[in-house]
C-alpha cells in the first residue's frame, strides 16, 4: 500500500518516453528520475557523461524546478512583449502551446496519464468500505503524487481555485502542474473569461501546505456495475496544516488530534 514517492517518477519517466517531441527535455527528465530511483547505483553506472553525473537527487530536482519556474517567468515576459507588438496574435491560435515561446513549459496533458493511474490506485485503496473513518485513515497514509487537486482555502489568495495534478510533495510544499487557461475562472464564467498571463501559460505551481486545504475526488463505483447504481464519487479534503510531514514519514506517522485554532472554517 505504501508506495515510495519515487514510484510516481517511474510512471512519469515512462510517460515521457512515449511522448515523441522535445528530445532534449526528455533526456534531462529521464536522468532526473533515474537518479531519483537509483541514486547510489548510478555512481558506477554507464551514464558517466550525463550532465547529472555525481550530483545528488535532491539538488537536481531542485534545479529542475527552479529552471522551470524561471522559464515560466521569462515566458510571461515574452508573451507580454509579443502582445504589445501585435495584440491580436493570440486570436488565431487554438492552443497556446503551439507558440514556439511556450513549447518548453510543462504540459498538463502529459501528466493526465499519472492521474488516471492514481485514480485507479485510490479506488482500489478505498475498496468497498462505507465507513468514513476507515476511508480517511487509509487515505492519510497514501501517496498523493498524481492526484488532481483543487485548492479551496489558502492564506495566499492567488492560490485559491488553482487546480492541477500533484507531481511532488515535500514537507512544506506541494508542487502541482496546472492546465493552460484553467482554474476557477473557467468554472464560474459564462462568457470568455479573462486570464492573466501566468494563467494562460499554465505550468508548475508551488503551493505551501500551511493554512491550505486541498480537495480531491475518489471514484467509488462498485466493481460490477448494475443498472440501478449510479457512478459516483466522494470528495475529500486534505488539511494542509496537519500534513506537514514528508510523504515518506507519513506512512508510519501516528497522527493526533490537536486544538483546531489554526484551521479556518
Amino acid at each position, binding site marked *: 500500500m505504501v508506495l515510495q514517492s519515487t514510484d510516481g517518477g517511474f510512471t512519469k519517466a515512462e510517460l515521457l518516453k512515449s511522448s515523441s517531441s522535445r528530445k532534449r527535455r526528455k533526456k534531462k527528465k529521464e536522468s532526473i528520475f533515474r537518479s531519483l530511483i537509483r541514486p547510489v547505483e548510478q555512481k558506477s553506472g554507464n551514464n558517466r557523461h550525463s550532465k547529472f553525473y555525481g550530483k545528488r537527487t535532491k539538488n537536481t530536482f531542485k534545479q529542475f524546478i527552479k529552471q522551470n519556474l524561471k522559464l515560466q517567468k521569462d515566458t510571461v515576459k515574452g508573451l507580454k512583449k509579443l502582445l504589445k507588438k501585435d495584440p491580436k496574435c493570440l486570436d488565431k491560435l487554438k492552443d497556446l502551446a503551439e507558440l514556439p515561446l511556450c513549447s518548453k513549459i510543462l504540459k498538463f496533458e502529459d501528466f493526465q496519464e499519472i492521474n488516471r493511474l492514481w485514480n485507479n490506485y485510490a479506488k482500489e485503496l478505498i475498496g468497498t468500505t462505507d*465507513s468514513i473513518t476507515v476511508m*480517511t485513515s487509509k487515505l492519510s497514509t497514501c501517496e498523493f503524487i498524481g492526484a488532481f487537486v483543487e485548492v479551496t482555502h489558502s492564506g495566499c489568495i492567488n492560490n485559491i481555485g488553482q487546480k492541477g495534478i500533484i507531481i511532488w510533495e515535500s514537507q512544506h510544499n506541494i508542487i502541482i502542474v496546472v492546465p493552460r487557461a484553467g482554474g476557477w475562472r473557467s468554472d464560474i464564467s459564462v462568457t470568455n473569461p479573462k486570464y492573466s498571463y501566468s494563467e494562460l501559460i499554465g505550468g508548475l505551481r508551488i503551493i505551501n501546505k500551511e493554512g491550505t486545504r486541498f480537495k480531491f475526488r475518489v471514484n467509488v463505483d462498485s466493481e460490477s456495475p448494475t443498472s440501478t447504481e449510479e457512478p459516483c464519487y466522494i470528495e*475529500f479534503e486534505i488539511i494542509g496544516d496537519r500534513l506537514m510531514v514528508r510523504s515518506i514519514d507519513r506512512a508510519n506517522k501516528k497522527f493526533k*488530534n490537536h*486544538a*483546531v485554532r489554526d484551521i479556518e472554517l
Partner: protein
Amino acid sequence: MICDLNVVYPQDDFDVFPGARELNKLKGCLAVLEQLGYTHIALNFEPKWTSGTINKHMPGDIQKVNPINVDKDFPEFKGRLKIYSRITLKIDDPSQCQNITKFQQVFDIVAVEPQTERALQLAITNLEVDIITFNYRERLPCYLKHKTIGAATEKGIHFEIKYSDILESGTHARAQAISNIKQLIRASRSRGLLCTSGITFEERSRARAYCDVSVLLEFMGLDRNRASQAFKDWSLDVLLSGRLRIKSYKQVIAVSGDGGLIDNSLEQNDWSLKRKDAPTNIKIDARGYKKRRLVEKD
C-alpha cells in the same frame, strides 16, 4: 455566525422519548433563538445521573444512543438553522470514562461535567472532549487554578458559561452563579470560553440576543471582544473539532461536504431509520457524501 451550543433536549433517559408537545415547544424555542440572530444551535442531551451509574441505562446498540433525530424531527429548520447534537456527561469516577470514545462517534459535540477535582483533572489530561461545563448554581467542585484551565485551553478544550443561570433574580443560586462565572473568567484569563444559553424548552423567554449578553459579561470581567469571540469564534472552534472527529482521520483528511468542514447536512441524522445494510453507526457512514458522477460517453 452566532452559535448557541446548549439548548436542553427534553429527555434525560435513553429509553423515554419526548412527546410531540415537548418537541413543538422546543421548536418554538429554536424559532425564538433564530429571531434573535443565532445561526448554529446544538441540542444538548443530558442523561440522568446518579453517582457512579452511567453505564447502567445505556443501550448496547450504538445506534440507539443518540436520541436526537435532526432530519426526522426538525425538518422545518432546514436551511434556516444548523442544528447539531451534543451530549453532556457527568463524571466523578475515572472508571466510567471508557465510554466516552463511543459517544464521540455518535454526537457532534461531547461535553463533560466533572463532579470532583479528580474528574476535572482527568477530563483535561486524558479525555478527548470538546467542552467542560459546571453546574454554576452550586459550589464548584474545586477552586479553579489557572494552570489547569490553561492546560485545557492549550489542548483545545473550551469552558462553558450558561447565561440563563444569571437571569433568574433574587435567589442565592444567582449569586453563586455570578461568583462562579467570575472565578472561571479569572482563572482562564478570558481565553477559551464559550457562552451558551442553557435554556430548556419551557423557558423560551429566557433567551437573549448576543449583544445583550455580552454587556452582562462585561460586568463580570470579560471584555467586549472576548465576549464576541465566545459566541462566534470559539464556539465555531468547538463545532469544528467535534465535527472533524467524525468527518476526518485525526484532522488530516476529511470528507468534504457542501458547506465547509462543520456542515452536517449530508449525513443521515435520522436515527430511527432502519436500513438492512446499515453499518453499526450512521454518522460515520460515507454514503451520504457520494455524489453522482457524469460519465463521458465516447
